[in-house]
């Protein structure tokens, strides 16, 4: 199994969610994060004090999937999240050794 972690632009969340759902992937966990990368931030000035904001709001999606679905999932995310502009984000794929569904104690792919 794989744990797919995607960092995307916040306003793409809804589209990515729907795209994954269409691809049959119904579960995910979402976190508000701030990203730092090539996309430039901006400068805010409060009275005289400048304050460079180079952390930008992003959304992190975590999706656990069976190995065979991983490729589709990644492609789906990439497609739905792309705007072509800098700051679109990244997808990371990590090996996942075990999954347990708490409610039922199911383990492995059926728990995803």
């Amino acid at each position, binding site marked *: 199994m794989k744990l797919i972690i995607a960092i995307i632009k916040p306003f793409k969340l809804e589209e990515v969610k729907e795209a994954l759902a269409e691809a049959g992937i119904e579960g995910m966990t979402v976190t508000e994060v701030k990203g730092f990368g090539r996309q430039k931030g901006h400068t*805010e*000035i*409060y*009275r*005289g*004090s400048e*304050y*460079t904001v180079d952390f930008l709001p992003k959304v992190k999606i975590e999706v656990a999937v069976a190995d065979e679905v991983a490729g589709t999932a990644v492609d789906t995310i990439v497609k739905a999240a792309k705007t072509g502009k800098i700051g679109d984000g990244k997808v990371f794929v990590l090996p996942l050794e075990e999954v347990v569904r708490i409610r039922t104690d199911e383990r492995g792919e059926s728990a995803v």
Partner: protein
Amino acid sequence: MLLSFFFALFCPLWAQGESAAAAPAAPVALTPTVEQRLASLEAYLANTDPTAALKNAQGKIPPGLSTPGAGVAGPGHNAWMMVSAVLVLFMTLPGLALFYGGLVRAKNVLSIMGWCLGITSLVTVLWWAVGYSLVFGRSFDSPYLGGSEHFFLKGVGGAPNPNYSFWVSHNVFAMFQLMFAIITPAVIVGAVVERMKFSAVLAFTALWVLVVYCPLAHMVWGSNGWMNGLANPAASIKAIDFAGGLVVEMASGWSALVLCLVLGPRLGFGKTPMPPHSLVLCMVGTGLLWVGWYGFNAGSAVAADGIAGSAFMATTIAAAVAAGTWAALEFLVRGKASVLGFCSGAVAGLVAITPACGFVDASAAVWVGLAGGALPFFACTKLKGWLGYDDALDVFGVHGVGGTIGMLLTGVFADVAINGNLATNLSGAVGRTLWIEQLKGMGVAFILAVGGTLAIALTLRATMGLRPTIEAEQEGLDLTDHGEHGYIYDSSNI
């Protein structure tokens, strides 16, 4: 600190008995004429002395002669002054608490709110015990300090005190003035947020109110005050200050500068960004300050008369113009007008018009608003950067600079047509040399504020210490001084 607070509370209560002391036997009552009764009713509308028509050829009121309309509170004036007192309290709780609270980092939001509450509590007790009397008493017969006759607010009842108003209850006047004594130190501590111990804030407040505020307020507003050019014909310095340009704004602004210099900058100042945690709160606080300022300014007419109306108009215009000016300058300098800019400008305009409001017309208020927006803008965005002091919430830039320019312009724009009282003791000076008197008064206020604050701050630093530990400052004063958090939004808090 808290012990002395209690000491202040308890010991004077013995004195209470005295207030029941027997009044001298009243003389036989004389019947006033219809003319005299009419005159005292008309005095209510005109906010003048209801006993004027009772005076005989020697200018004395025959013993036992009075009218039903003399010595009672006039409802309209009293109503307005109760409202004004409420509005000025509103400026501190929660106005200033929000304005300042929004500008600090989230870990210090309760700290500044607690300061506002603690100062309110402490200054009220001081005012009851000695403060009011030291400012508005007369028993010391001194141009520099009032008297002791109203310690513990003795003799401060529902009837007007004609030294300050013919128609407003003495107790209402005392409470109105209390609200000024509360907000002034509360304004000061904006300069030192995020890095001063709560106990030190309280100690500073107590000393500052007694050492700086009380004498200064007596000199400017006391009926026999040294610099009360408006009402005291014997004033040495014939300065005028309608609502506190000297007593509140300059005093707080310059004291704030000294205090923040003695204290030193916040940890990481200049390196770490320290943006406001909630401009939303700050904007709300601005609204409350603006709204409350009508009590402050129009209330300083101590009557609901036409002068109050003029103060109302000048206040509105100066605030609006200064808000626009600050924002416009931001737009010119960096292409965007910020909400903090509008808020800062509004407050700065309100500060600048404070000494002038009951003396000037609408167009003068525009000028005061322009100057009151532009110079504080410059002070906050440029001067502070050049000099490098850490006046965290720009108390000096807004109140010190705004108050200073406002006092000076008051000397320039004061107009007998707007406020006839200017003709009583100042007719020669108005429109001519008044600004020189203003400068003298400003000099005295400057010296008293800077000298007094320096002495108090250095003493406290040497004794109890002013700053929290580095860890406490890093962790935030909310937790370390008060054991609380401002916000707990966690979904696991269920």
